[in-house]
Protein backbone atom coordinates (compact mmCIF):
# COMPACT_ATOMS: atom_id res chain seq x y z
CA UNK A 1 0.00 0.00 0.00
CA UNK A 2 1.25 3.48 -0.86
CA UNK A 3 -0.27 6.76 0.19
CA UNK A 4 0.97 10.35 -0.03
CA UNK A 5 -1.35 12.34 2.20
CA UNK A 6 -1.78 15.80 3.70
CA UNK A 7 -3.53 14.28 6.72
CA UNK A 8 -1.80 13.33 10.03
CA UNK A 9 -0.33 9.82 10.02
CA UNK A 10 -1.52 7.47 12.78
CA UNK A 11 1.34 4.96 12.99
CA UNK A 12 -0.31 2.85 15.69
CA UNK A 13 -3.39 2.24 13.56
CA UNK A 14 -1.22 1.61 10.47
CA UNK A 15 0.89 -0.99 12.28
CA UNK A 16 -2.22 -2.76 13.52
CA UNK A 17 -3.71 -2.84 9.99
CA UNK A 18 -0.39 -3.99 8.54
CA UNK A 19 -0.16 -6.92 10.96
CA UNK A 20 -3.63 -8.04 9.88
CA UNK A 21 -2.44 -7.90 6.25
CA UNK A 22 0.58 -10.15 6.86
CA UNK A 23 -0.36 -12.57 9.64
CA UNK A 24 1.93 -15.33 8.37
CA UNK A 25 5.02 -13.25 8.01
CA UNK A 26 6.85 -13.86 11.26
CA UNK A 27 8.63 -10.52 11.27
CA UNK A 28 7.44 -6.96 10.76
CA UNK A 29 9.77 -3.96 10.73
CA UNK A 30 8.52 -0.39 10.78
CA UNK A 31 10.25 2.95 10.51
CA UNK A 32 8.54 6.17 11.57
CA UNK A 33 10.22 9.43 10.68
CA UNK A 34 9.19 12.34 12.89
CA UNK A 35 9.58 16.03 12.17
CA UNK A 36 12.41 17.24 14.45
CA UNK A 37 12.19 20.29 16.67
CA UNK A 38 15.78 21.48 16.12
CA UNK A 39 16.94 23.21 12.97
CA UNK A 40 20.54 24.08 12.07
CA UNK A 41 19.59 27.57 13.32
CA UNK A 42 16.97 27.81 16.09
CA UNK A 43 13.74 25.88 16.67
CA UNK A 44 11.48 24.58 13.95
CA UNK A 45 8.02 26.15 13.99
CA UNK A 46 6.70 24.28 10.99
CA UNK A 47 7.76 22.06 8.14
CA UNK A 48 6.37 22.05 4.60
CA UNK A 49 6.71 19.10 2.25
CA UNK A 50 6.06 19.63 -1.41
CA UNK A 51 5.31 16.62 -3.64
CA UNK A 52 4.90 16.38 -7.42
CA UNK A 53 2.11 14.01 -8.38
CA UNK A 54 2.36 11.54 -10.08
CA UNK A 55 6.20 11.52 -10.12
CA UNK A 56 6.38 11.26 -6.34
CA UNK A 57 4.06 8.25 -6.19
CA UNK A 58 5.56 6.58 -9.28
CA UNK A 59 9.08 6.82 -7.87
CA UNK A 60 8.10 5.38 -4.49
CA UNK A 61 6.16 2.59 -6.18
CA UNK A 62 9.24 1.70 -8.26
CA UNK A 63 11.36 1.58 -5.09
CA UNK A 64 8.78 -0.71 -3.45
CA UNK A 65 8.87 -2.98 -6.51
CA UNK A 66 12.67 -3.07 -6.34
CA UNK A 67 12.49 -3.98 -2.64
CA UNK A 68 10.03 -6.80 -3.42
CA UNK A 69 12.43 -8.13 -6.06
CA UNK A 70 15.45 -8.01 -3.79
CA UNK A 71 13.90 -9.37 -0.60
CA UNK A 72 11.20 -11.99 0.02
CA UNK A 73 8.53 -9.63 1.36
CA UNK A 74 5.00 -10.67 2.18
CA UNK A 75 3.80 -7.09 2.41
CA UNK A 76 5.12 -3.56 2.22
CA UNK A 77 3.47 -0.25 3.09
CA UNK A 78 4.60 3.37 2.78
CA UNK A 79 2.59 6.35 3.96
CA UNK A 80 4.22 9.75 3.37
CA UNK A 81 2.94 13.11 4.52
CA UNK A 82 2.90 16.20 2.30
CA UNK A 83 1.94 19.81 3.04
CA UNK A 84 2.27 21.65 6.35
CA UNK A 85 3.23 19.91 9.59
CA UNK A 86 4.74 20.67 13.01
CA UNK A 87 7.61 19.09 15.00
CA UNK A 88 6.62 15.69 16.40
CA UNK A 89 4.34 14.92 13.46
CA UNK A 90 5.07 11.72 11.59
CA UNK A 91 6.50 12.50 8.14
CA UNK A 92 6.78 8.95 6.93
CA UNK A 93 5.81 5.42 7.95
CA UNK A 94 7.41 2.40 6.29
CA UNK A 95 6.43 -1.18 7.14
CA UNK A 96 7.84 -4.42 5.74
CA UNK A 97 6.83 -8.00 6.50
CA UNK A 98 8.78 -11.15 5.78
CA UNK A 99 9.28 -14.66 7.04
CA UNK A 100 12.94 -13.68 7.45
CA UNK A 101 13.57 -10.87 9.89
CA UNK A 102 16.83 -9.92 8.14
CA UNK A 103 14.89 -9.32 4.91
CA UNK A 104 12.30 -7.17 6.70
CA UNK A 105 15.06 -5.06 8.32
CA UNK A 106 17.07 -4.61 5.13
CA UNK A 107 14.07 -3.77 2.95
CA UNK A 108 12.83 -1.10 5.40
CA UNK A 109 16.35 0.33 5.61
CA UNK A 110 16.66 0.38 1.79
CA UNK A 111 13.27 2.07 1.37
CA UNK A 112 14.16 4.76 3.92
CA UNK A 113 17.41 5.46 2.07
CA UNK A 114 15.39 5.82 -1.13
CA UNK A 115 12.89 8.14 0.54
CA UNK A 116 15.60 10.34 2.08
CA UNK A 117 17.58 10.89 -1.13
CA UNK A 118 15.50 10.00 -4.18
CA UNK A 119 11.82 10.41 -3.35
CA UNK A 120 10.38 13.44 -5.12
CA UNK A 121 9.77 15.80 -2.19
CA UNK A 122 11.09 19.23 -1.30
CA UNK A 123 11.26 20.24 2.32
CA UNK A 124 11.06 23.74 3.78
CA UNK A 125 11.65 24.54 7.46
CA UNK A 126 10.26 27.63 9.13
CA UNK A 127 12.11 28.89 12.22
CA UNK A 128 12.32 32.24 14.00
CA UNK A 129 15.08 33.05 11.51
CA UNK A 130 12.79 32.54 8.51
CA UNK A 131 12.31 29.84 5.89
CA UNK A 132 14.97 27.43 4.60
CA UNK A 133 14.75 24.73 1.94
CA UNK A 134 16.43 21.56 3.26
CA UNK A 135 18.23 19.13 0.95
CA UNK A 136 19.60 15.66 1.80
CA UNK A 137 22.76 15.57 3.91
CA UNK A 138 25.97 13.92 2.60
CA UNK A 139 25.42 10.99 5.01
CA UNK A 140 21.98 10.40 3.48
CA UNK A 141 23.65 9.91 0.09
CA UNK A 142 26.28 7.63 1.67
CA UNK A 143 23.54 5.53 3.24
CA UNK A 144 21.70 5.26 -0.08
CA UNK A 145 24.90 4.30 -1.94
CA UNK A 146 25.29 1.18 0.19
CA UNK A 147 22.64 -0.60 -1.87
CA UNK A 148 24.28 0.18 -5.22
CA UNK A 149 27.71 -0.95 -4.01
CA UNK A 150 26.12 -4.20 -2.90
CA UNK A 151 24.68 -4.65 -6.41
CA UNK A 152 28.03 -4.37 -8.16
CA UNK A 153 30.04 -6.26 -5.51
Amino acid sequence: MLSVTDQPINTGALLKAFEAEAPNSGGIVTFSGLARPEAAQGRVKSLFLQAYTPMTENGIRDAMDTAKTRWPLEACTIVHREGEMVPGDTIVFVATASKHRRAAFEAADFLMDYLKTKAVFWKKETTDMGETWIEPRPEDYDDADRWTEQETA
Partner: protein
Amino acid sequence: MATLLYFGRLSDVTGMPSEEVQLPKEICTARDLRLWLDQRFEASGRLLEPTVRIAVNSEISFDADPVRNGDEIAFMPPVGGG
Protein backbone atom coordinates in the same frame (compact mmCIF):
# COMPACT_ATOMS: atom_id res chain seq x y z
CA MET B 1 1.78 27.53 -24.03
CA ALA B 2 3.96 25.34 -21.79
CA THR B 3 3.42 24.88 -18.07
CA LEU B 4 6.63 25.50 -16.13
CA LEU B 5 6.93 24.27 -12.54
CA TYR B 6 9.64 25.55 -10.18
CA PHE B 7 10.02 23.22 -7.22
CA GLY B 8 11.67 23.64 -3.84
CA ARG B 9 14.18 26.47 -3.56
CA LEU B 10 13.77 27.33 -7.27
CA SER B 11 10.43 29.02 -6.55
CA ASP B 12 12.45 31.51 -4.48
CA VAL B 13 14.69 32.10 -7.52
CA THR B 14 11.80 32.59 -9.96
CA GLY B 15 9.45 34.23 -7.45
CA MET B 16 6.63 31.87 -8.42
CA PRO B 17 5.87 28.14 -8.11
CA SER B 18 4.61 27.83 -11.69
CA GLU B 19 3.70 29.78 -14.81
CA GLU B 20 2.16 29.35 -18.25
CA VAL B 21 4.58 30.51 -20.95
CA GLN B 22 4.54 30.63 -24.74
CA LEU B 23 7.91 29.08 -25.65
CA PRO B 24 9.69 31.11 -28.34
CA LYS B 25 10.40 29.21 -31.58
CA GLU B 26 14.13 29.00 -30.92
CA ILE B 27 13.62 27.05 -27.67
CA CYS B 28 13.84 23.44 -28.87
CA THR B 29 15.61 21.49 -26.13
CA ALA B 30 15.68 21.34 -22.34
CA ARG B 31 19.11 22.99 -22.54
CA ASP B 32 17.71 25.92 -24.58
CA LEU B 33 14.95 26.36 -22.02
CA ARG B 34 17.35 26.34 -19.07
CA LEU B 35 19.54 29.04 -20.67
CA TRP B 36 16.56 31.19 -21.66
CA LEU B 37 14.95 31.02 -18.21
CA ASP B 38 18.20 31.52 -16.31
CA GLN B 39 18.68 34.77 -18.21
CA ARG B 40 15.02 35.79 -17.94
CA PHE B 41 15.05 35.38 -14.12
CA GLU B 42 18.63 36.70 -13.73
CA ALA B 43 19.25 33.44 -11.89
CA SER B 44 23.06 33.60 -12.24
CA GLY B 45 23.27 29.94 -13.27
CA ARG B 46 21.01 28.55 -10.57
CA LEU B 47 18.75 27.04 -13.26
CA LEU B 48 21.80 25.57 -15.02
CA GLU B 49 23.17 23.54 -12.09
CA PRO B 50 23.45 19.85 -13.02
CA THR B 51 21.80 18.93 -9.69
CA VAL B 52 18.68 20.73 -10.98
CA ARG B 53 16.95 18.09 -13.06
CA ILE B 54 14.20 18.65 -15.58
CA ALA B 55 11.09 16.49 -15.98
CA VAL B 56 9.01 16.82 -19.12
CA ASN B 57 5.46 15.52 -18.67
CA SER B 58 6.57 13.72 -15.47
CA GLU B 59 9.53 11.95 -17.08
CA ILE B 60 13.12 12.88 -16.21
CA SER B 61 14.65 14.49 -19.30
CA PHE B 62 18.16 15.44 -20.32
CA ASP B 63 19.59 18.59 -21.87
CA ALA B 64 19.29 17.36 -25.47
CA ASP B 65 15.67 16.21 -25.06
CA PRO B 66 13.00 18.25 -26.85
CA VAL B 67 10.55 20.62 -25.15
CA ARG B 68 7.39 21.98 -26.81
CA ASN B 69 4.43 24.19 -26.11
CA GLY B 70 1.82 21.93 -24.50
CA ASP B 71 4.40 20.23 -22.25
CA GLU B 72 4.45 20.36 -18.48
CA ILE B 73 8.08 21.05 -17.64
CA ALA B 74 9.31 20.78 -14.05
CA PHE B 75 12.57 22.18 -12.67
CA MET B 76 13.59 19.96 -9.78
CA PRO B 77 16.40 20.74 -7.33
CA PRO B 78 17.75 17.84 -5.23
CA VAL B 79 14.88 15.86 -3.75
CA GLY B 80 14.47 14.10 -0.44
CA GLY B 81 11.56 13.10 1.78
CA GLY B 82 11.30 11.07 4.99
